[in-house]
Structure formats: structure tokens, C-alpha cells
């Protein structure tokens, strides 16, 4: 256990005093978060006054390391194998997407935001489109809404299968990597059939979706729904009941509900602590109020709960997809407003007006009325929101994406405190960060 130094921060009257909820409010050396700059860390190595018996090491993990979670760098203050404090260093994938969004029109905006969370790109496109539609004041046709729901739930399944695969591999079950990707390929095949791309689809656009579902999509969905459940049972056999898996994940990286809320963690991390918080239920968007599904909640707030929540969310998503299959309405797949929706290519040869609209939409872009708004969706990682400010021109004035992984990364030091470094790998994996969304 580390020696407790004098608390350097000023205590606030609002902070509760009992130890379990207090640790996330700590500012000084007794906090789980290592708040040192790189220069200070480099100095520690050169400090001649450190006691030789002191086993404390500052270890650097990343940004290039075999865990498949992208360019995350962790600075760990360790005593032997135990992690005392840690600091996640992010920014290695900072792409300037928010600045780039100010240079692109609204119809190009989705190509930009889709590359943030590259494991589930349709969610960011959806949030961007919802924010733009709020500013435009248009209403999307019912069929477009249901198509969006279908594609997003499939994307949630693909993202959670990716989590299963990488989580398994990080803990040593390398075969799980192969199994998880095998199922993911099936889902990606359907997504490719509908959107044309396996990833970064640019399919959900302001006004609706880019193209209607192709003929025979019902048969493809039914095939998927028959294929995946027995495979999920294989995962249950391979992982859920297995003693090694349980020992590695149960009791590791425990967080309680107050701490998670204080750290603004959302998604499976918050649900694993026992709080049933899911935007599809608590702040419904699209047509989620009309479909029936359960919100999966954990009880212990550990890595095992987060794994189990995501596994069962795949099953819930399949149940939602089945309901969408039964209830898909007919109609337009995008709003029929000539100023926003480009005309069909055939019309361009027939009508001058259609040609002009096509030209204006793709070169200058449509103008969005002034205003500011926030729209959020429940992505596989948590609450994914887009805050958009428009100044009446055809490009957003300010587009900010509330990336769930960016904020969930803050829970890392608290989860890793006093755990082993091997548990650290399990914890990073259970948070399931996607660095594109963290760094934007």
C-alpha cells in the first residue's frame, strides 16, 4: 500500500466523507490517478535520492503494444507487480476531426465522424444526422427510422463480437479471436450488401439513409439470426463457465455506481455497477420506444459483469432485429425535401431543376438554420452525443462529439488501483476503448 502523502488539494464541503465513494474526488498523491507530466516522470529516473530498497517503478506501457486497443499509452506507478497509480496518456490518434468538420459540408460530415468510432461507425453517423435534423427541423420518414434502427443494432452486434474476440485474446483465449471475427464477418457481409462498405459506411445521412434495403434482405437477416445464437452458446462453453476465465475476471476492476456516475462513465461500465442506464430506455430516440428489449445490468461492477453484459446485449440486439424484421414499415428511405435530398440519378438527365439541386447540394451544400443543439445515442460504449452549432451556412460552425470512450478512459486508474499488471490488461479490455473516438 502506498504511503499517504499530505493531501495537496483543497477539500470541498460537497464531497461525501466515506471512503468508497471518495476516492474519485481525490486530487493529491493518494489518488489513483498519477498526475505528472512527462518531464517530471523523466526526472524520477535521474533522481539520486530515491531509496534503493524502494521497489517503486514507473513503467511505461504503449503506445505501441500487443493489446489490440489502439494507441493508448499507460504510465504505471508500480510496486513489484502491483499497480498503485496510473495515468492514461491519450492523443496519439488525434486527427483534428472537429476542426475538419468545420471545413466540410453537412452532407460530407458523416464521412468524417464515421471514422471516429471505427468499430461501430453507424452510431456516430446517426448522432450527427440526428443533430443536423434537429437544426433543420425536418422529420425523417418512418421506414428510414426503422432501417437506421436495424443497421445500428447490427452494428452493435458486430462491435460486441469484436469485444468478445479482443477480450478473449487479451486474456489468452486466442481461439476466441478467430471465433469472434468469424461471426463478425457474417454481420459485415450484410452491412456490405446494404451500404456497399464493410466499415466506415457513410450510410446514415441527415434526412434518412443513403439507399434502401436491397431485395432479399429479410432472408439474409433470418440467416444471421439462425447462425449466431448457437455460436454464442459456444462462447458460453468456452468462456462464461470456465474457471480460468472467471478467476481472471471476477473481482477484477471493481467500480461502484456512485463512482461511475461521478466519473461520467456510461454504457456497459455504468450498467455493470447495477444502474440500469440505457439511453434507448431513458431518453428514447428513433423508434426504440416501440420495440421491446431488456436493459442488461450487472451486480458487482467487475470485468466479468462487463463481459457478461456485452454478451447478453448481443442477444438483446438480435431480439430487437427480429422485431424490426416483423414490423418494418414501407415508405421512403429518406426525406423528400428537394433542398436536402439529392435527386435520383435518372432525374438529372430529365429535369434541369433536378440537375441544379444535385449541383448545389454536392458543391455548396444545403444551408442549415442558425441554432445549437445536442443529440445523443446509446453506442456500444456508452452515450455518444454530438453538440452542433450552426451559423446559417452550409458547414457546421462547431461540431463537438461526446465520445464515450474518451470519458470512460478516466475510470482506468481507479479500476487498476492495487491490482496486478496482468489485471490491468483485463481492465483495459473490459473498458473497450476505441482510440479513434477518444482522440478524434
Amino acid at each position, binding site marked *: 500500500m502506498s504511503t499517504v502523502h499530505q493531501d495537496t*488539494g*483543497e477539500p*470541498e464541503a*460537497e*464531497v461525501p466523507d466515506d471512503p468508497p465513494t471518495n476516492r*474519485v*474526488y481525490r*486530487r493529491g498523491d493518494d*489518488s489513483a*490517478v498519477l*498526475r505528472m*507530466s*512527462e*518531464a517530471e516522470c523523466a526526472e524520477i529516473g535521474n533522481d539520486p535520492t530515491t531509496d534503493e530498497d524502494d521497489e517503486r517503478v514507473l513503467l511505461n506501457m504503449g503506445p505501441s503494444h500487443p493489446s489490440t486497443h489502439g494507441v493508448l499509452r499507460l504510465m504505471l506507478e508500480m510496486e513489484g507487480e502491483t499497480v498503485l497509480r496510473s495515468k492514461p496518456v*491519450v*492523443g496519439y490518434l*488525434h486527427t*483534428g476531426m*472537429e*476542426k*475538419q468538420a*468545420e*471545413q466540410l459540408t453537412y452532407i460530407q460530415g458523416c464521412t468524417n465522424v464515421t471514422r471516429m468510432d471505427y468499430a461501430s461507425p453507424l452510431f456516430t453517423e446517426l448522432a450527427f444526422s440526428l443533430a443536423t435534423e*434537429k*437544426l433543420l*427541423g425536418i422529420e425523417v420518414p418512418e421506414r428510414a427510422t426503422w432501417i437506421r434502427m436495424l443497421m445500428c443494432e447490427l452494428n452493435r452486434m458486430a462491435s460486441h463480437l469484436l469485444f468478445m474476440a479482443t477480450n478473449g485474446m487479451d486474456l489468452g483465449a486466442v481461439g476466441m479471436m478467430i471465433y469472434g471475427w468469424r461471426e463478425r464477418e457474417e454481420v459485415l457481409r450484410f452491412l456490405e450488401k446494404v451500404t456497399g462498405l464493410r466499415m466506415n459506411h457513410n450510410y446514415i445521412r441527415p434526412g434518412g439513409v443513403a439507399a434502401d434495403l436491397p431485395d432479399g434482405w429479410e432472408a439474409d437477416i433470418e440467416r444471421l439470426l439462425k447462425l449466431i445464437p448457437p455460436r454464442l452458446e459456444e462462447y458460453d462453453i468456452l468462456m462464461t463457465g470456465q474457471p480460468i476465465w472467471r478467476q481472471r475476471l471476477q473481482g477484477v476492476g471493481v467500480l461502484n455506481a456512485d463512482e461511475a*456516475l*461521478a*466519473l*461520467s*462513465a*456510461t454504457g456497459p461500465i455504468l450498467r455493470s455497477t447495477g*444502474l440500469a*442506464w440505457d439511453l434507448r430506455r*431513458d*431518453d428514447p430516440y428513433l423508434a426504440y420506444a416501440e420495440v421491446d428489449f431488456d436493459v442488461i445490468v450487472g451486480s458487482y461492477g467487475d470485468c466479468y459483469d462487463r463481459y457478461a453484459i456485452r454478451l447478453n446485449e448481443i442477444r438483446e440486439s438480435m431480439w430487437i432485429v427480429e422485431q424490426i424484421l416483423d414490423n418494418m414499415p414501407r415508405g421512403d428511405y429518406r426525406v423528400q425535401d428537394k433542398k436536402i435530398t439529392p435527386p435520383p440519378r435518372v432525374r438529372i438527365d430529365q429535369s434541369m431543376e433536378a440537375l441544379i439541386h444535385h449541383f448545389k447540394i454536392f458543391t455548396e451544400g444545403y444551408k442549415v438554420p*442558425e*441554432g*445549437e*443543439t*445536442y443529440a*445523443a445515442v446509446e453506442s456500444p460504449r456508452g*452515450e455518444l*452525443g454530438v*453538440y452542433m*452549432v*450552426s*451559423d*446559417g*451556412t452550409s458547414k457546421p*460552425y*462547431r461540431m*463537438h462529439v*461526446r465520445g464515450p470512450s*474518451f*470519458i470512460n*478512459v*478516466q475510470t482506468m486508474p481507479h479500476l487498476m488501483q492495487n491490482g496486478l499488471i496482468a489485471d490491468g490488461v483485463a481492465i483495459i479490455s473490459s473498458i473497450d476503448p476505441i482510440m479513434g473516438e477518444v*482522440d*478524434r
Partner: protein
Amino acid sequence: MSDEAAAAEEAEPEADPPEQVETTTRYGALVEDSLGDTVLHTPVADYLDTASAAHGDGFALLVDLTAVDFLTYAGTRRLPDGVDPQRFEIVTSLFNTQSRERLRMRVQVPAEEPTVASMFDLWPGSEILEREVFDLFGIEFTDHPDMSRVLMPEDWVGHPLRKDYSVSSIPVQFKSASNVR
């Protein structure tokens, strides 16, 4: 425009003449309706107090904390009376976990003194969000546990998301490639 006492609930819309805009206050800040969202406009000096009042009223989840630079805003800034438009604006989004209500706070921050109170003691989750705002806009948060850059390298000069910082794109000439296998 009448200002009610602090912490009043939202007043019912009365049959007023259209020019007179209803201003109500909540937690001591002016309330505005923005496309269906409730927005509180609070001056910089009262920001922490308003946030504390909201936190005490059940807004346990800090959803987002970001900033906007209005230097090159092409439209007309429409703010309620009594709110002075400044160059920067801090936008804080909150969520009430009991009543499922969303709230947004907008604070005008002057360019000459870009300093705002930190929300760390109410919501520790604001730590990384405030670091991002500092990194990309240069707005400092007083009493923040670690006011350093998070996305850009530590020795970077300049604040990229400010409107006077250029996108720094390089001119590109598209040529067709021969010898493509």
C-alpha cells in the same frame, strides 16, 4: 422582463404580446428553450454556484463539457437579455438520473480573461473534458487537479480549435498514377 427569485420552476407560458419574451430563472440562471432543450445562461462568476445547485437537485451525470469560439460567427448571436455575448462559450450538458431530464448550461467567457471555475469537485468526470478544452481552446480552469494538454503533444504551441488557428492544410495536386499493379 421580471426576474423571479432564485430556484423558481419554469413558468407557464402566458398569453403575452409576442414581442415580450418570457425569462424565467432556474438555480439562479436565465432559462432559454433551444429547439426543445432547456438551456441555462449563467455568468462566469456564478457558474460554480449554478452547477452546484443543479448537482444538488439530482443532476448526477455530467454528460459533456465543451467550448465554442464565436470569433468568425456568420449569423447573429441571439442570447437572452442580460447576457453579454463574449468570444468563448463553455457549454456543459447535464443529465438528471432520477427525473431523466437533460439540462445545458452556457457560460460566456471573455477572450481577455479566459478562466472558468473547474467542475472537478462536483463531477470528477470533468477532468479530462476540461483538459481537452484547455488544450484546444486555451481556456483555463481554476482549481483543476492537472491543467495540462491531453490531445496535442505537451510542447505544442497554440490552441488548434480556435478560429484564428488555421487548419494548416497543404495544397494537394491530384495526379493519375501510372504503373499501378
